[in-house]
């Protein structure tokens, strides 16, 4: 079962090695590069490759970020899930360091990149990926002088995500409860999938080593405590916690207790698979008047209570790739042709509950058709929106207690918002 990575490669968009770190000396860069270049040459679209491939005794696991491929090569039966997730973490760390991870930033910072690769992985085993802590002892050129010459305690501590000695004048916590609604409607107009994914996003600005405790209207907890749960409690499915939360404790008595990292992080995520009525419903009718003239009629209807209002609504209606001069009218909001997405983008800044609006568009197609016209790709209608002060699940933060030995008072700020996640309605 044991297995480790032989080498980590950062490759450019054509598959050529930018930087690589050899951990075991049993995979050569030339061989890996040759294989990988061949692999991505085969397809125009790199996304169509399985992210795990085997060739000649070596397994390659990779992902793409901007114009960079991150690839791990292994000769053993290593933990593929762990390695791929680790590659994503590397992306996060590099982004923390260089703002953006791309070919140029890697080239400009190759010394730091080498240092990080040395610290994040040893002999092919993932070691440490907390960007914030790493940056306490590995710095980019600009901050070299302030380098901490010792490993921060956090690297080996049980609390590996927070350093000691953090000080704030004003101790504050911001907690955003964000629910994303995913929905899939088939071409018969049936809702075939719907679920809600929630996240508790925290930003903490707290001194010292604070102990936090979070109380939710979790039915299991409330019932265990013998409280009445009329209507207010909710059932959360598959809760996932940030590594700072004591999982065993939660398992025991449903208490969410933790020492938070400094700054922004996702404290927990959860999922609800109960069927929800689509908050915004969209229908489209397409009329082909002639070979070169097409008309589309789109109706959008809000199906939530009138006292709520959806904001920043964006409805993306797909059109042919070579559409010419769409002429669009809407009963509310503005709509534009977005050729980069082959779509009409209908934006409505504020969409009150229980209303219906329309869009009508007409456009032409060129008389000369493309030589090898590919079959029309059937993109779905996609919708984005946000509804503030509202959650589908009815989740509530009952309390957030913060205890630190210095005894300061910290203020928690809580906000609720619902937004569209993967919101797809297939065209008829």
């Amino acid at each position, binding site marked *: 079962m044991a297995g480790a990575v032989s080498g980590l490669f950062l490759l450019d968009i*054509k598959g050529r090695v930018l930087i690589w770190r050899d951990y075991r000396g049993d995979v050569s860069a030339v061989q890996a590069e*040759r294989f990988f*270049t*061949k692999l991505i*040459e085969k397809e*125009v679209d790199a996304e169509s490759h399985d992210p795990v491939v085997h060739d000649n005794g070596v397994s390659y696991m990779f992902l793409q970020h901007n114009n960079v491929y991150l690839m791990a090569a292994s000769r053993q039966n290593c933990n593929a899930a762990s390695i791929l997730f680790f590659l994503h973490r590397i992306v996060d760390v590099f982004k923390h360091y260089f703002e953006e991870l791309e070919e140029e930033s890697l080239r400009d910072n190759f010394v730091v990149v080498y240092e990080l690769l040395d610290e994040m992985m040893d002999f092919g085993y993932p070691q440490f990926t907390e960007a914030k802590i790493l940056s306490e002892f590995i710095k980019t050129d600009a901050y070299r002088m302030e380098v901490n010459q010792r490993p921060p305690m956090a690297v080996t501590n049980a609390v590996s995500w927070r350093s000691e000695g953090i000080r704030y004048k004003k101790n504050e916590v911001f907690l955003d409860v964000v629910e994303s609604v995913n929905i899939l409607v088939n071409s018969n107009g049936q809702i075939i999938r719907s679920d809600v994914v929630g996240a508790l996003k925290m930003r903490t600005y707290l001194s010292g080593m604070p102990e936090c405790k979070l109380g939710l209207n979790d039915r299991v907890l409330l019932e265990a405590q013998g409280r009445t749960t009329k209507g207010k409690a909710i059932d959360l499915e598959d809760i996932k916690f940030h590594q700072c939360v004591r999982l065993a404790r939660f398992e025991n008595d449903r208490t969410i207790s933790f020492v938070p990292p400094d700054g922004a992080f996702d404290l927990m995520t959860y999922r609800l698979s109960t069927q929800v009525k689509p908050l915004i419903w969209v229908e489209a009718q397409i009329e082909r008047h002639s070979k070169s003239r097409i008309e589309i009629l789109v109706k959008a209807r809000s199906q939530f209570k009138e006292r709520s209002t959806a904001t920043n609504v964006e409805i993306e209606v797909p059109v042919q790739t070579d559409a010419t001069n769409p002429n669009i009218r809407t009963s509310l909001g503005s709509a534009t042709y977005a050729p980069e997405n082959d779509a009409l983008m209908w934006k409505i800044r504020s969409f009150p509950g229980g209303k219906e609006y329309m869009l009508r568009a007409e456009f032409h197609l060129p008389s000369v058709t493309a*030589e*090898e016209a590919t079959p029309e790709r059937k993109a779905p209608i996609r919708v984005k929106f946000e509804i503030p002060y509202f959650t589908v699940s009815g989740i509530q933060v009952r309390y957030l207690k913060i205890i630190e030995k210095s005894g300061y008072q910290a203020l928690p700020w809580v906000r609720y918002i619902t937004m569209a996640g993967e919101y797809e309605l297939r065209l008829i």
Partner: protein
Amino acid sequence: MIQFVLLISRQGKVRLTKWYSPYTQKERTKVLRELSGVILARGPKLCNFVEWREYKVVYKRYASLYFCMCIDQDDNELEVLEIIHHFVEILDRYFGSVCELDLIFNFHKAYYILDELLIAGELQESSKKTVARLIAAQDSLVETAKEQASSISNMIAQATK
């Protein structure tokens, strides 16, 4: 006969393509991908010829650019190397120490020059001077036309003031 001419950068970007035989867009993409894969991977000391399908591709690298010409089996590979060089020298003279950027931003000029050098995939002119002269003459025709156009629009502007 030269079937097609390609200019590919070391990064695999296409800088010029000229097809003297019909290839569909799909085939073109495939040819480009196939050949740039083969040619860019070849080491510096290997010969400048690659056998490809029922043809041969003669290529030559100039710094970051690969000039490639695809020819028939019985064409003279060494001569095609000279043709490539001939083309490069004309480009160099025209742009004055040509670099890759010249070819990117003035790609149409590179095509004009190529059209004075090859037609129907055959060599048209062996004198660099003649090619330069013909291009200069046509460039100046364009300049004259532009000047005329701008003086006319000036006149109109004057008249409608």
